[in-house]
């Protein structure tokens, strides 16, 4: 028993009320499905059933798209940008007011630690709405007008499909810019994490958002496919796996539909011998164990300069001993549950493959709860570039460690992947940071930090990590057009 045991510090669940079942949010109201069915959403840390939600069928998708179209052609489309902005300010404010409720719900439904949902997910989601609220009446200044000086126009109805790793945050990344630009949306949250999106629907009602501007359709792959393929949708925004992203790109081929895709990654976190070593270790830990490694831009490959590799790995393993794995609602938990049984199986499979390939496996000693889906933070050393665990996205708390000798070699190894979402650079030398940043084929480069997000900072990938950017001035581009008629 440790000398200093932190007693349980549970966040109370009482702040949030979960209904036994939820319909679909269409046209500003919760409605029953026409041709769908019900399914359960569980808490991955305990396998407790949280609620029943609706799997939207094709007719439901039709109804939602129609509601969005009506709103676009009607009240929303005619609204001046300044008024649209004020709706978004309201939403941002309500998210701040109900922050604790959302944080608890997110941790329950997703499995992530309450500290992360409270300190990262929810504040960033509110910030996204604040930032974009301010753009709604300033679009002519965003450099997107093609030289006309007039504000660019919205596209129309946007279909948005988001993943389970940052449910409310991904929702805000999608809805805020879409609405700021004057579009209306139909959004499908991931099947394992529908609850904060459904609570967000209540926020829309509290903000008096006109019906049909935001529509929430819960469901799984089928629902997503119906939405993406619906002819009444002008643009798709998708965040998820590269596999599905490619399918979407294929399905819109030959149409006028536009798409932005934010897909997978296998980012290199590169540590040089002159790095600020203690902060670099924190950056490695944050890079792959934040959010249980369920992060598209996770630093899942550590590229450490060979002359300091042993020391860095020793420090890393020592640091991992203080990571606390357990109940997501405990305020001292650092690593929560894996989101689903399916994802846990995938992680286990790839970890097994890593061992079979000849890499050396090490896991942080921790006691895992009996119920729920859990995986101990794991580090593979002696990994080679050609190992599958150096190429395939694991999407879990598993780090693959490789070495390099020179900056050029680091660049070559970092870029040697079909992915290109993010990268990390750890060195105290400014000139090297800037040179490396130039060389790395990644949409987001973090130097002496990692996994930092901001509504003003554009996010998105190169190559098979997708295309298009979210956030910042650049992120508005996907939601507007300069065409005179549509």
């Amino acid at each position, binding site marked *: 028993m440790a000398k200093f045991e932190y007693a349980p510090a549970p966040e109370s669940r009482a702040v949030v009320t979960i209904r036994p079942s939820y319909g679909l949010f269409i046209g500003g109201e919760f409605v029953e499905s026409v041709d769908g069915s019900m399914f359960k959403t569980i808490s991955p840390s305990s396998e407790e059933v949280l609620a029943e939600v609706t799997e939207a069928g094709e007719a439901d998708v039709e109804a939602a798209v129609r509601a969005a179209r009506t709103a676009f052609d009607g009240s929303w489309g005619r609204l001046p940008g*300044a008024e649209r*902005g*004020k709706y978004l*300010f309201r939403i941002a404010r309500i998210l701040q007011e109900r922050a604790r409720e959302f944080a608890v719900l997110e941790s329950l439904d997703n499995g992530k630690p309450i500290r992360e949902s409270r300190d990262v997910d929810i504040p960033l989601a509110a*910030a996204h709405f*604040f*930032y974009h*609220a*301010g*753009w*709604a*009446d*300033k679009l002519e*200044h*965003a*450099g997107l007008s093609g030289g006309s000086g007039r504000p660019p126009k919205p596209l129309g109805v946007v279909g948005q499909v988001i993943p389970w790793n940052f449910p409310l945050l991904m929702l805000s990344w999608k809805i805020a810019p879409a609405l700021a630009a004057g579009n209306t949306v139909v959004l499908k949250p991931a099947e394992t994490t529908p609850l904060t999106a459904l609570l967000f629907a209540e926020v829309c009602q509290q903000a008096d958002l006109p019906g049909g501007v935001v529509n929430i359709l819960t469901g799984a792959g089928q629902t997503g496919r119906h939405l993406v393929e619906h002819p009444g949708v002008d643009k798709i925004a998708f965040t998820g796996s590269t596999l599905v992203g490619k399918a979407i790109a294929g399905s819109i081929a030959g149409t006028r539909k536009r798409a932005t895709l934010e897909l997978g990654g296998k980012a290199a976190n590169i540590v040089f011998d002159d790095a600020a070593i203690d902060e670099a270790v924190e950056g490695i830990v944050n890079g792959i164990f934040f959010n249980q490694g369920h992060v598209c831009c996770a630093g899942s490959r550590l590229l450490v300069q060979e002359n300091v590799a042993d020391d860095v790995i020793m420090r890393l393993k020592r640091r991992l001993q203080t990571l606390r794995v357990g109940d997501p609602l405990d305020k001292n938990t650092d690593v929560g549950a894996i989101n689903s049984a399916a994802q846990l199986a995938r992680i286990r499979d790839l970890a097994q493959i890593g061992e079979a390939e000849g890499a050396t496996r090490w896991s942080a000693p921790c006691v895992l709860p009996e119920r729920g889906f859990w995986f101990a933070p794991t580090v593979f050393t002696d990994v080679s570039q050609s190992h599958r665990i150096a190429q395939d996205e694991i999407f879990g708390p598993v780090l693959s460690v490789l070495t390099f000798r*020179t*900056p*050029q070699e680091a660049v070559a190894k970092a870029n040697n992947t079909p992915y290109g979402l993010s990268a990390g650079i750890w060195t105290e030398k*400014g*000139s*090297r940071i*800037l*040179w*490396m940043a*130039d060389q790395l084929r990644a949409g987001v480069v973090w130097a002496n930090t990692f996994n930092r997000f901001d*509504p*003003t900072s554009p996010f998105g990938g190169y190559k098979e990590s997708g295309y298009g950017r979210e956030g*910042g*001035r650049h992120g508005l581009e996907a939601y507007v057009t300069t065409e005179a008629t549509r």
Partner: protein
Amino acid sequence: MSPTAARHGATENSAVKDQRIKVRKTYKLYIGGTFPRSESGRTYEISDSRGTFLANAAMGSRKDARDAVVAARGAFEKWSATTAYNRGQVLYRVAELMEGRRAQFATEVVAAEGLTPARADNVVSQAIDRWVWYAGWSDKIAQVLGGVNPVAGPYFNISVPEPTGVVAVLAPQRSSLLGLVSVLAPIVVSGNTAVALTSEQRPLPAVTLSEVLANSDVPAGVINVITGRTAEVAPWLAAHQDVNAIDLAGAAGADDLVWAELERASAENLKRVLRPDVDGADAVEPDWSRTPDLTRIKAYLETKTVWHPKSR
């Protein structure tokens, strides 16, 4: 309820109500987050558009102006270091509080400018929306006005806009709320701090705005408001060596004031000067209801360009 309606529903109580003596507001300066009277002890009468007495406003002196500049300078370091996001949040909250006080503002605009209640209400809405418009700029200015420069060499080169420092502003003489907000918000949104000399004859909405600021999260000293005679105080602000920029909007239509003189005084420390849009004592002010462009934001920004080599 209008006085007429109140009399229509007359009962014994309402007869007593008509006789109720109001608790009148004292209008003071707003400097460093507090409400002092003028150090000179002077006041001057403010009347409404029909000549009826409204209040005694503090007659600000050069020493009040001096104190305000000290307060603004003291607040600058922290305000300019506040994240753009936080500044936006603070300014948005000011708009929230203005919205809560809209009836009070409307009454004061009616009194100051002689507008109908309906028009005054519209002016208040515009003033609030104007404030919201500027609040939403704080975390976008750098993206629109800054950028990376592709120099011909192995260097990273970036230009960033930074706030210039303490900005003095002569608020418009006629548009006592909308005009005031339109010149004040663009100063502070980017991190500058402000010393505002209000409209000489129509200062009361500005004092009510100070009350909103004092109740909001705007830190003490970020905005300072001085009422008084424009021709008396303006030259001291224009000549003040610790003021970095000055907006001469309120010189248009001010008695005994030649704005060219103020610009000349400003040249002593090369203040950035925003000239009034119009000339002459009888000039009409610009149409404050039109959505602004970036001129007023840009006027108080310095551009800093940084180089750094890139090499392995």
